[in-house]
Every structure is written in C-alpha cells, then in structure tokens.
C-alpha cells in the first residue's frame, strides 16, 4: 500500500519539494539580511537613544518578499484543492476505484493509508512553511510587536499545520461526496475560505474572555508585549461607552491614552475647553478639562487579549481545525464504506 501511495504521488511530492526548497532559499537569504539590518539599527538607535520610535521609522525587508510571505495564507487551500479533492473523486472519474476497491486490501485500509499519508504530508508542508515564516518574521515581530494581530497570527506558529490538515480533509471529503474532481475543488476553496473567515471574525476573539482595563484620563497605559487590541474608547459614570461622533472637526482633546472629542464631554467641561481648537489648548487648560472629565467619572478603556495568551490561542485554534478535519475524515469513511464500487 505504501509503495502504491509513493508511486501515485511521487510527481506531486517532487513538485512540492522543489517549491518548498525555493521558498526556503528565498526566505533564508532575505531573513538573514533582515536580521542584519535589525541588529545594525539596534546598534545605531542605542547610540542615538532613539530606539523608542524605531517602530515608526524603520522598515525591515522588502515589499515583494512581504507579499510572498502573506501569500502563504493560501498554501493550505492549494494543498486541499490539488491533492485532497482528487483523492477519491479522481479514482471514481477514471474508474480505478472499481479495481482498487475489489482487491484483498479492504476499502477502509485503502482509504486509511491514502488519507493518512496525505494528511501527514499536509501537516509536514504546513509546519515547514510556518517554521520558515515564523523565523523570517522574528525581527519584524520584535520591532512591531504584532505577532498576535489578525493576519500575522494566521501564518506563524502552529496554526498553519491545523489549517493545512483541515483543508486537506475538506478536499478529500468533498471529493468522496461529489465524486467529481472539479466541483470538489471549487467546494474545497469556497468551504476553506468560509470556515476560516467565520472562525477568524467571530470565534477567535472570544476563545478566552478578553481583558478590559479602565484607565484614568491623565495616565497612560500600554499592555506588555505583542497584545491583541479588540476595542478601545471611553466610558462614562454609568460604565457604558460614550458615543464618539464620526467627525470631530479638530475638537479633539489629547489624553494619555488617545484622543477624546470635546463634544463627548459633559457640558461643564466643554465650557472649560472653550470654542477653539482643543488640540491647541495650553497644558494648564487641558489639565483643567481632563480633571473636570475625571471628576465626572469618565475613564478610558482598552479591551485586549494579553500577549501571554498567544500560545494558548494558537493551541486552541489548531485544535479546533484538527477536530474539524477529524470530523470530515469520519464522514469520508462513512461515505466510502457504504458506496458501491
């Protein structure tokens, strides 16, 4: 059986190996350049004491390679479409399933070995690509502290392994159900995008209850490390968020945690701010307005997932996709066992 797998998939395996080697070469070369750039920047900014604003002034790497790294988001889908979808469907289309399913090897064994090898292969490809991207992104993660941000989280760590296994399982299941390769490919692509989008937008922010911190207007607060900001704003005395108008016309008052429109403050405080441009208030006047707002129990709030939860989130999301993959594979077994050869 293993020999059969090797014969059937050796061309694909060779193509994948060549592509991975090309990606590895590109990322290794540009990654080492970036690391060197990062270190020299650290040396220079330590010398001039400007490391604090480095994230605003330094751009690491090139746009072209950056594009390529973002495009690794599509690797799982391509694996699922090109290797997963044809697994059962193509055998049906060419009629080889009639031969394969009437041998001494049972259908379940046939499927278990084929699907098992492909899932293992998908996990391996996902791990290699993610390993390369994670290493490559090291300096940028240190500079921007954004490893937890949507889009960055999705191409690093262990989640790409989960995505790859899920996409592969989705392809295999779609092929077994539809028995035709092209529709299975289309379903795999659409299904993968839909499931990823739903989990990304509506499930991930709530995997663990977010932390909300209330901050006095006159003091600053930034969570440690690469945290993920979910919401920010201001709350009034009743603890409910203050509505912030869409346009503020320059009537914006700088606080230590951001800016608050003057029109959102109580009337007494608005009177203190006067009618002019609030950004040009003298420090003393600004302080008086902020003290007034604080006396009215207006506080800033920040809702976020702390940086310390990064690996917990990676683990949960990977587990979720591996579970989905397992469910899909169970469906495939049920379908294949019941179907006539």
């Amino acid at each position, binding site marked *: 059986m293993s020999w059969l797998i090797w014969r059937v998939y050796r061309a694909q395996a060779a193509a994948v190996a060549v592509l991975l080697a090309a990606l590895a070469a590109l990322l290794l070369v540009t990654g080492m350049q970036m690391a060197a*750039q990062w270190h020299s920047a650290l040396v220079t900014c330590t010398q001039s004491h*400007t490391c604090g604003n480095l994230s605003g002034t330094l751009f*690491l790497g090139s746009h072209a390679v950056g594009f390529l790294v973002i495009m690794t988001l599509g690797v799982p889908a391509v694996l699922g479409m*090109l290797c997963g979808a044809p697994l059962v469907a193509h055998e049906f289309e060419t009629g080889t399933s009639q031969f394969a399913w009437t041998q001494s090897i049972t259908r379940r064994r046939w499927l278990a070995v084929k699907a098992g090898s492909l899932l293992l292969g998908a996990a391996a490809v996902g791990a290699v690509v993610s390993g390369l991207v994670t290493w490559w992104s090291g300096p940028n993660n240190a500079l921007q502290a954004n490893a937890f941000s949507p889009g960055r989280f999705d191409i690093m760590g262990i989640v790409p392994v989960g995505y790859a296994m899920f996409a592969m399982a989705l392809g295999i299941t779609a092929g077994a159900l539809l028995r035709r390769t092209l529709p299975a490919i289309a379903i795999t692509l659409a299904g993968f995008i839909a499931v990823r989008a739903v989990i990304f937008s509506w499930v991930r922010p709530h995997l663990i209850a977010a932390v909300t911190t209330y901050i006095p207007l006159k003091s600053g607060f930034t969570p440690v490390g690469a945290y993920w900001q979910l919401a920010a704003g201001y709350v009034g005395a009743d603890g409910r968020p203050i509505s912030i108008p869409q*346009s503020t016309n*320059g009537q914006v008052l700088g606080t230590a945690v951001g800016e608050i429109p003057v029109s959102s403050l109580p009337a007494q405080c608005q009177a203190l701010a006067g009618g002019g441009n609030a950004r040009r208030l003298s420090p003393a006047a600004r302080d008086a307005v902020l003290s007034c707002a604080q006396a009215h129990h207006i506080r800033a709030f920040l809702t976020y997932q702390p940086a310390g939860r990064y690996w917990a989130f990676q683990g949960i999301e990977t587990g979720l996709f591996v579970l989905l993959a397992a469910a899909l594979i169970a469906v495939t077994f049920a379908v294949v066992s019941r179907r006539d050869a």
Partner: protein
Amino acid sequence: MTWLVWRQYRAQGAAALALLAAFAAVLVVSGLQIARQWHSVAAACTAHAAGASGCLDVSLGGSHAQLLIGLSTIVPAVLGFLWGAPLVAQEVETGTVNFAWTQSITRTRWLSVKAGWLLLAAALWGGAIGALATWWSGPRNALYQEQFQPGHFDIQGIVPIGYAVFATALGVAAGAVLRRTLVAIAVTIGGFTAVRLLISLVVRPHYLAAVTAYYRPMAGYSPPGSAWVVSEGVIDKHGHVYVGDAAALVNGVPVTAVPASCRSLLYAGPDTLTRTHLQQAVSCMQAGGFRGFTTYQPASHYWPFQGIETGIFLALAAGLLAVTFAVVRNRDA
C-alpha cells in the same frame, strides 16, 4: 456549437452566478454601511476646513472590510483554473476529443466557439466584480485617496477584466499543452500568481515616466491627490541615492546618509537626540548639497496606467490563445 457550449457549461455557469451573487450581496451590504458612514463624516468635515485631520482618523468599514475586498484579487485565478483549465484537458482525459475532433465542425471552429464564449464570460465576470469593488471603494478613495496604491489599483477600474481574460486564457493554454486537468490547474495557479506579482512589482512603476520632487532634507513632501509614491529618500550632490528604508533611520533620515562631519552634530547631545540637534544636522546636510526627494506617479496617470496594464494582460491572453490554437490544430485526435 453555441448550444453545445451552453449544455456543457450551464452547471458551471449557474454555480458561478450563485457565487457572484453571494459575494455581491456581502459587498453591497458592507458598501452601503461604508457609504452611510462616509456621508455622516463628509457632511461634518466639509463644514470645517480644520477638521480634515479629524476625518482621516475615521476607519471606513473597519479591518474586516479590507479582507473581504481583498478576496476579489483571487477571483480571476479561480475563473482560470475552474473554467479555463478543463476546457481542452478534460476532453482529452475523458476521450471525448476523439468524438469532438472528428465531426464536420473543424477543430479550429470548435475551439474558437468554446474559448470565445468562455473568455466573454470571464470578461463579464471580471468586469462585474471590478465594478462592485470600484463602487465599494468610492468613499475610501475620496477620504484616503488610495486608488493608485498597489493592492487597491488591482481590484478597481478595468484591470480586473484584463486579469480575468488572461487567467482564463492561461488555463485553456495550460490544459491544451499539458492535457491533464489537475496539472493544468496547478500551472494556472502558479503561473497567474507569478505573472501578476512580476508585473505589479517590477513592470508597473515604469509604464510612464515618474515625477520627482526635490526639497530640503527631512522636510517631507506629499504629492497632490491620489498619487502613487514609488520611492523617497535622500540624494547627495554626486547623485548617490539613500532610499528611506535602506538603513537604520533617525526620524526619517538614514544615518548612513548623514556625512561624517554632520553626524557628529547628531550625537553631540548628552543622552537623547533633540530636535535642535536634528535641525543642525539637517542644515549641515543641506549645506553639503543633500536634498530630499520623492518620486511619484501623479494622480493623472491613473487611467493611462489602468489602460496599459489591461492592454498588457489582454496581449498576453492573445499570445496564449495563439499557442492553444497551434497546439490543438497540430495534435492527433
């Protein structure tokens, strides 16, 4: 022949229409939301000239909207591998070419009718998605002036039509040359991505001569309207260019670009780099013949660029179709 094409592709056509409708529905909902948000902002902003900076802080549509609209960049590739790649390859695989190519209708006619209808459908589809994306981006273009930026340029205007026709032609050609659907699909995905990246990153900045503005080092310059800034940095009197992100920066100035005599001014302070030190160093650089520069494609180049890029992709598609015809005509049934 047309009836045959209709019979063969009606399922695909229906599936495609369903997908287009779903995508359009999501875009229309999100687009209406953005338009409402924009109207409430625009009314207030235009009243006060001073409010423009307040308006730029507004995030129209939020972060999910960006991801949604970004999906339309892959639409041409999907058309190419789902519609284009199987056109010849699947007929070869299932053996139906033996029948199709031995009828009274010539092979050339067979291919031109099939490929013709498919390319027309691809152009319509590309145009529809492009028009939706253009409408959706209207408020954002008005506020952020971003329609010329890479990534935004690629989903608006007429270029999506060129991409869709090219991707479909690539699929058809790959299928005709390779005669296997799956391999053709893989080649279509890889080829489309490679050509798009190559043209947008390497070729596009050079369609028309860019404009360069020079100014005092560190003064900064933002070209009018929705111009596309191709590069910016510092240039010395010998014409040597220091591009902004090439080296470690101090407040936007590459330290390596600061000549040694001026650099000592930067680090003269006790611990931190002050604005005064920076101004002294900049004045020193200016005296030494350094200038800041911004090279950009002005906003008036937007439609010429759209036209040129669409033309390039249509020409590539025509080349691929010529290859397909040559291959199909010379092959034994």
